[in-house]
């Protein structure tokens, strides 16, 4: 039983004072239902969640008390990816024909202040100022630049591309292009990463309607097929966020969850990186996008310097990355981020991405989310 995505909905990302995360989730859900041409009562089963904005299943009191099974997902940065994977399995197993996956969030301004004890760490780790995701990203790219010759100029190029793409995306938060100089010269947050090289915690919501592939044309003339969706946690020896220690000489990301999740998704789909026409990679900061290009198999370590210099990752290039502006331009509402990548992929495969449409009628899309505490979810989509 194959799976298709036949409805997509988004609540714009950014800051929305007075609008709860749940309300943003409900908005996205209604958009997705309308896109599929169905009502809430048609949805047989739902999976969804947020990191910090409440339980998705309470939305039934807003959307309608139809009695459907609705499972809350609370799985860190892979919350959206996990909801998608579970929705996929609910259809593949034959249990359900029409399922919703959704994610939303609403975070206060500023860096995340994670609770060490919730991550199985001693309180000292937070008290002494070590429990910041920003530090991890700074240290991982610092080592990677040292090992593979990536320049600071390339970090700025990645962010400049994100804001350029964001400017073409009506749902993005940051829609003002910035020059590489403005990015490089902004405040140093966590060396070598400056303020404009980091995404900010934000708000937003995404919902997707999935169905049995053989029924997809009941709902849309442009179905997009979910060829594979994978989820992996870290293995021993990888370099992960919130690690008081590491095994000696782990290489930046090898054996990490992104590598494993990408490989699993490609194996299931029967496709490889060379088949992909458009990709969305977790870009919590510009270094992450660079490293994730290699971790997910799209290039070898160190090749990013030349690829980015030559424009390979631009919308008109051979491997367009983060065509909607990624986390850098959209911000990171954790529960919604992974599903935003899928939303963008569906638009691109439908040929409906407007000013940011990848030319040449893309056929295969790839998405990758990564986050605390060393978790990744990847998907391969086709049309």
């Amino acid at each position, binding site marked *: 039983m194959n799976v298709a995505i036949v409805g997509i909905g988004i609540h714009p990302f950014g800051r929305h004072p007075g609008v709860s995360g749940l309300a943003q989730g409900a908005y996205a859900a209604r958009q997705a239902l309308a896109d599929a041409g169905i009502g809430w009562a048609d949805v047989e089963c739902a999976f969804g969640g947020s990191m910090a904005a409440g339980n998705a299943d309470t939305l039934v009191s807003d959307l309608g008390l139809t009695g459907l099974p609705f499972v809350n997902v609370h799985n860190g940065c892979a919350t959206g990816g996990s909801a998608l994977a579970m929705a996929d399995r609910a259809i593949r197993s034959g249990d359900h024909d029409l399922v919703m996956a959704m994610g939303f969030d609403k975070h206060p301004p500023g860096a995340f202040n994670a609770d060490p004890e919730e991550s199985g760490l001693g309180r*000292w780790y937070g008290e002494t100022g070590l429990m910041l995701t920003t530090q991890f990203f700074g240290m991982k790219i610092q*080592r990677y630049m040292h090992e593979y010759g990536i320049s600071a100029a390339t970090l700025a190029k990645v962010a400049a591309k994100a804001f350029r793409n964001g400017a073409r995306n009506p749902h993005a938060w940051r829609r003002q292009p910035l020059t590489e100089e403005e990015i490089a010269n902004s405040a140093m947050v966590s060396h070598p990463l400056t303020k404009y090289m980091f995404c900010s915690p934000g708000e937003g919501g995404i919902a997707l309607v999935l169905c049995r592939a053989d029924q997809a044309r009941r709902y849309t003339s442009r179905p997009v097929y979910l060829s594979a969706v994978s989820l992996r946690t870290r293995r021993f020896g990888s370099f992960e966020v919130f690690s008081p220690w590491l095994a000696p*000489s782990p290489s930046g990301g090898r054996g990490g969850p992104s590598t494993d999740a990408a490989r699993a998704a490609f194996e299931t789909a029967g496709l490889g990186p060379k088949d992909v026409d458009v990709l969305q990679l977790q870009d919590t900061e510009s270094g992450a996008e660079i490293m994730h290009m290699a971790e997910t198999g799209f290039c070898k370590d160190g090749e990013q310097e030349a690829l980015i210099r030559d424009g390979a990752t631009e919308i008109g290039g051979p491997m367009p990355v983060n065509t909607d502006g990624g986390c850098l331009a959209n911000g990171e509402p954790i529960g919604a981020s992974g599903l935003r990548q899928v939303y963008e992929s569906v638009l691109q495969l439908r040929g409906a991405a407007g000013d940011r449409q990848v030319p040449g009628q893309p056929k295969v899309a790839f998405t990758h989310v990564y986050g605390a505490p060393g978790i990744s979810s990847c998907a391969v989509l086709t049309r």
Partner: protein
Amino acid sequence: MTLSEGKTVPVAEGLFSWPDRPRLIGGTCAACGTTTFPAQQSCPSCTGTELRAGPLAETGRLWTWTIQGFEPKPPYAADGPFAPYGVGYVELATEDGSGSVLVESRLTEADPARLEIGAPMRLTFIPLRRDPAGATVMTFAFEPAEQAAEQAAGQIGEAS
């Protein structure tokens, strides 16, 4: 301030020996030799449950680093005013040489020009805050080994 002024207490039990012969305490797996920090009861590499706690070396090499440029939100708990601080991973052997581990740590140096991957680093201890009883809460940190040598030679005044 020096350690002899007033009472000092470690930020958490089990991280390092204190106050005599202060050393970080790691745990080494009897089955596969993996070393963890802090010491833990099970081995995340081979799933073994026989780990022996022991001191880590005082010196090692800087594996990677960054500078924390803004004041963290709670549970960060240090007396102000905030000043940017270095953070890094330092590769340390166990004192008996049976294992090694990359330990994440505060660095005393916050100037990017004075931090270099591969540079030798030395264990030290820094005050975080006063606890309600008036004792100074201490945590571990690493400093560039050259600076440590300068201080030992009484040349601190010339360094700035």
